[in-house]
């Protein structure tokens, strides 16, 4: 499918926003400004953006512990996200969720998730809502290769097939579940094939190539939206950082990350593709990069200055008042 100039620019802007957001979070985390744990998405941008470009604000996604990219691609405000990471009162979750629980229900972002495999059943539920209420929306579950082994994921896929729900299961195979290699942990070494065994159409795409992801997602979203039921997409991708910030990554081969950054950078691939096709020139993309840089600078500035949650927030929102 041919994308318009505006669509191409938006795709690049979203991918660049995720990349710069994550590089900056790494930096701020190392400096001690961000409490807790962060799991960075840099390297996987084409997946989140390639999928979410087909979604509107009413469509729903369930995410993972590595959820910043999905959030940005789904339209969450990076400044509010940054404030949440800094544990500020003004953050997306009032400073009570943090990186692992970023959510923005108004934008259909049902939450990052601290539980591997926690999200797929939730996406099935969102798809059930869509079907029951006759909304023409779809729900996407983002899961990793690690989450692909969880029983909840299998149950969710089966139920989506049984109830013919508008759900899409995206498996971002970044080659590691924490520090254990995909080749070791996924017995069949074929996540898409395993998904197909549940009776849903499943494809494997190259996550370095935004256009390949975009096309597969287009088909899956269209199928779901037109009553064709669930699909699965395995995205072959890679992460430029460890499982979490601060992971020494001793399980990686020497120079692995350096070569990934050289050979498997989905932003570089995108630039090359649109340049060769004469769709966008380098100067335009550089301009996007600098606009994004200003946005991220601003996000960090605001986050640093924002106040922490009020002490009363500790006891708020456990129960509805009655």
């Amino acid at each position, binding site marked *: 499918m041919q994308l318009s100039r505006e669509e191409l620019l938006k795709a690049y802007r979203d991918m660049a926003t995720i990349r710069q957001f994550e590089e900056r979070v790494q930096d701020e985390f190392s400096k001690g400004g961000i409490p807790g744990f962060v799991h960075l998405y840099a390297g996987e941008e084409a997946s989140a953006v390639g999928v979410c470009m087909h979604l509107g604000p009413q469509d729903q996604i369930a995410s993972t512990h590595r959820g910043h990219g999905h959030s940005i691609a789904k339209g969450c405000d990076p400044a509010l996200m940054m404030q949440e990471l800094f544990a500020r009162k003004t953050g997306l979750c009032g400073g*009570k969720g943090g990186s692992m629980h970023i959510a923005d229900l108004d934008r259909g972002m049902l939450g990052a998730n601290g539980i591997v495999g*926690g999200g797929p059943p939730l996406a099935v539920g969102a798809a*059930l809502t869509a079907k029951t209420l006759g909304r023409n929306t779809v729900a996407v579950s983002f899961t990793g290769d690690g989450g692909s082994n969880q029983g909840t994921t299998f149950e969710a896929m*089966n139920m989506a097939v049984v109830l013919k729900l508008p759900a899409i299961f995206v498996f971002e195979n970044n080659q590691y579940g924490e520090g254990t290699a995909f080749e070791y942990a996924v017995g069949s070494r074929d996540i898409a094939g395993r998904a197909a065994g549940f009776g849903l159409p499943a494809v494997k795409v190259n996550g370095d190539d935004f256009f390949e992801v975009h096309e597969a997602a287009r088909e899956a979203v269209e199928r779901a939206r037109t009553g064709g039921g669930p699909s699965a997409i395995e995205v072959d991708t890679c992460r430029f950082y460890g499982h979490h910030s601060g992971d020494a990554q001793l399980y990686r081969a020497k120079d692995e990350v350096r070569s990934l950054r050289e050979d498997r950078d989905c932003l570089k691939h995108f630039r090359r593709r649109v340049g060769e096709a004469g769709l966008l020139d380098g100067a335009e993309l550089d301009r996007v990069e600098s606009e994004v840089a200003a946005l991220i600078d601003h996000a960090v500035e605001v986050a640093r200055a924002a106040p922490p949650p009020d002490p009363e927030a500790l006891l708020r929102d456990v*129960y509805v008042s009655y």
Partner: protein
Amino acid sequence: MALKSIRQALNEGLAQEMRRDPRVVVIGEDVAGGAGSQGQRDAYGGVLGVTKGLFGEFGESRVIDTPITESAIMGAAAGAAVTGLRPVAELMFCDFLGVCFDQILNQAAKFRYMFGGKAKTPLVIRTMIGAGRSAAAQHSQSLYHIFTSVPGLKCVVPSNAYDAKGLLIQAIRDDDPVIFCEHKLMYDLRTEVPDEPYTIPFGEANIVRDGDDVTVVALARMVHYAGEAIDTLAKEGIECELIDPRTTSPLDEETILESVERTGRLVVVDEATPRCSMAADIAALVADKAFAFLKAPVKRVTAPHTPVPFAPSLEKLYIPSPERIAEAVRKVHGYAR
């Protein structure tokens, strides 16, 4: 007013709420029963018949038979709740909590708080509790104390049909996840139940009997066993106040404390195991907040710290009996420093 069983009261409450609000759906294993089969499409209506007939009125889009897949049921119900449905999900036996706890503990219970108050999760999980049918260790537990200990969950434990209907409708209209515990031996128990819909607020205990000598707090089936014990004790001249909290979370602390301040004596009866239980919780509450009023130690009458046994003779020993309850009351009543 008509006499109705707990089963009828729950069924009526569900149907009325489903008529009132198209967002209310019932989802679970065999909630209709017979999906994809050659026989009846409404073969079960829930394993013990609570959802019988709903399929005929509301159809398969709102009475949703699922595979045997508790994690997906609970997770889908949570995901559906947070996106606009008001699901009543069935966890057939509370023991099956073991295969789906993450979706309740880490997902549904946490959304509202963890997302800074922006998520509503109007989810009801109906589940069966209780021993007494020789269903043995994996189908007989009373696990409401586990749900009660989780912030973000509410927990309802009704003891009669009137309460069951009012509390179920309240649960469906509530915007937080509610665990609704139904004792499997009490479905046929009948009381007067109004035909029209009504609600009973959470956190309001029912004072089942008035008395000034000893306060007895009991839940679910134990309310009735305590009642039997209290009848016996009345003949001995001991007057007990019987309190049914009806909801364990929120808990009506005030009613319990007021009663103990008057009687100075407390017996808590709980069909669950003793450690970290409602019995322990209520005993601690009274020790903490009404210590000065106590005239005797608090007694807890509970199951032993064991799995539920299969043999009827052993199971009978496992479940607190009216005799054990009466004995505990006599002890605290006759206690002298």
